[in-house]
């Protein structure tokens, strides 16, 4: 298991280095260079030269990359937002906890809903319940998440006044939950797609487990149907869900971007969208980098949990 973990950590570090390189490269690809992005369309050549000199942009590209990485590692320097006149790090630090809360809560809710749904579909397989849940998951998968968000606001906030229209305002871990009702609709929106995919996966994973030899053995030994379902099939089907969460994190982060924008919830996604509208490339790139690092770390965590949960890895060799 130690070998597995070490390999997995190294792999994650390589991926993060690759992402850093890509984000760095994207910054260089701005037509006209970073000076153009910072100084605007009416820049003078002298101002551009001065900007490049001050920011080390006249150095060779490998040198710039080295300085970029060094800045990141030594004091988390993510660049400077000229549009906001503030460091990207400062912009992000207020918003990151809000996004992490939204993503965390939604993923937990999605699991709590999706796993029983998937089990229900297996217990009642090929019945009306099964087919209608499959249809529903198709529908949620096909529905743009922002459309779902609008409909929820329209019916539950404007018409029924069940939930406030305004998003949670607090930005620290404790103040964010002062009005939990404000959280309900964003969480529903973000978890809807995840529920659709998780429950479909849960269903196929359990159906697959039911065809395995150990299930036949259990049945042959006279285990009851419930014991086969919950004791054997479910336990084996639950472990891969951990991997699925890890694999789904980038998609959930994308979903969070949309959800935050719909509900005006000031997290990383809304920051990115606003920055994109304002042509604020450094903020977009910085937010992309940070959110990706967190997704990679989240996937790593999911894999570590997988290794702990699955005795074949926990007790097995270092493969």
């Amino acid at each position, binding site marked *: 298991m130690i070998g597995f973990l070490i390999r997995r950590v190294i792999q994650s570090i390589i991926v993060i280095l690759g992402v850093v390189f890509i984000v760095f490269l994207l910054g260089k690809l701005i037509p006209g260079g970073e000076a153009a992005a910072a100084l605007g369309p009416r820049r003078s050549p002298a101002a551009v030269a001065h900007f490049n000199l001050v920011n080390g942009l006249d150095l060779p590209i490998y040198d710039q990359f080295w300085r970029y990485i060094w800045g990141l590692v030594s004091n988390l320097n993510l660049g400077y937002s000229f549009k906001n006149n503030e460091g990207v790090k400062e912009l992000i630090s207020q918003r990151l906890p809000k996004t992490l809360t939204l993503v965390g809560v939604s993923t937990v809710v999605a699991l709590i809903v999706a796993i029983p749904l998937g089990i229900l579909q297996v217990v009642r397989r090929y019945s009306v319940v099964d087919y209608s849940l499959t249809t529903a998951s*198709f529908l949620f998968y096909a529905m743009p998440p922002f459309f779902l968000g609008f409909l929820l606001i329209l019916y539950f906030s404007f018409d029924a006044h069940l939930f406030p229209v305004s998003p949670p305002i607090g930005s620290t871990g404790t103040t964010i939950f002062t009005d939990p009702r404000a959280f309900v609709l964003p969480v529903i929106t973000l978890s809807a797609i995840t529920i659709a995919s998780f429950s479909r*996966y849960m269903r196929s994973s359990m159906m697959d487990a039911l065809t395995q030899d150990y299930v036949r053995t259990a049945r042959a030994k006279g285990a009851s149907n419930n014991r086969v379902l919950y004791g054997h099939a479910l336990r084996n089907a639950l472990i891969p869900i951990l991997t699925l969460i890890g694999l*789904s994190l980038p998609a959930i*982060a994308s979903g969070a971007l949309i959800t935050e*924008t719909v509900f005006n919830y000031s997290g990383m996604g809304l920051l990115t969208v606003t920055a*994109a509208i304002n042509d604020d*490339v450094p903020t977009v790139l910085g937010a*992309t980098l940070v959110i990706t690092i967190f997704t990679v770390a989240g996937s790593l965590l999911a894999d570590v949990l997988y290794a702990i949960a699955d005795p074949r890895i926990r007790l097995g060799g270092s493969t």
Partner: protein
Amino acid sequence: MTTHDEITPATGPDGPLDETLILPTGQVVTVPEGGESSSAGGMGRQILQVFVENRLAVIGLFVIVFFILFCFVGPAFYHTNQTNAEAALNATQNGRPSGSHLLGTDNTGFDLVGRLMFGGQASLIVGFASAAVATVIGVIYGAVAGYVGGWVDALMMRIVDVLLSVPVLFLLIALVTIYHASELLIILVIAFVSWLVPARLVRGETLSLRVREYVQAVRVMGGSNTRIVGRHIVPNAIGTIVVFATFQVADSILLLAALGFIGQGIPAPGTDWGTMLSDGVQSAALGYWWEIYPAGLCIVLVVIAFNFIGDALRDALEVRLQRR
């Protein structure tokens, strides 16, 4: 991304077409290995039969044909102004559905049925074109990586890992912020974030196909690498490729809708279904329901239709032998 996970050849047999299968009835069926091309009419007919038997797929196909006709042929019969913003502003804004405007008008005075056709053209073109570009890039990349193998393969696949770990909408937004949006650019940018999955799939197929006897036979006979990859490996992975491409059209349409929502969709005076939907939001809050539901319904129907077809193709091309 859910639908794609299911076509990852991780758990199933790697070679899609040439396996010895034991049917549930106990029969053993040996399928001949694929040669240069599968021109056998029987197989094609069998695939078609499985596809047609799947009612959902046939419905999906009808939905898509309907929308293609509606968006591209419709404007020839239903004449509306969709380009002159000034003339539109002089017309009724937020008009209720009526005899002259079947679905009413939007907040800038454009007729909404015409707008759906006009925006649908962009959504469908972007969907098809970006899926095609992504598939071509992914197939070439994956086939080269899998065929060459060694450190080239390792390096090429690490690049895919890195790009796949970036949440797709963030990457998409970064790209459209750097290069300002036009229809062609949106196609390329969506393709750029979508070629990774087919690259992985095709690379996996290639790894298993390149050690087959018929590939070795071609090599012994002096066939070039290009010929082996182009005429023998890629055609034998065509099932996976076609299934991916079908799902990708749906995903591309959703990605374009997301871009439209954050205001980076097809730039004005053009439009797309996602942009229409998000433009209609303020109006919908005021009770002008016709400004969001038709556009939303178009997206949902087309995306579901492509998913139905993709599912049916997956059954028809990959696991059809288990049924017979």
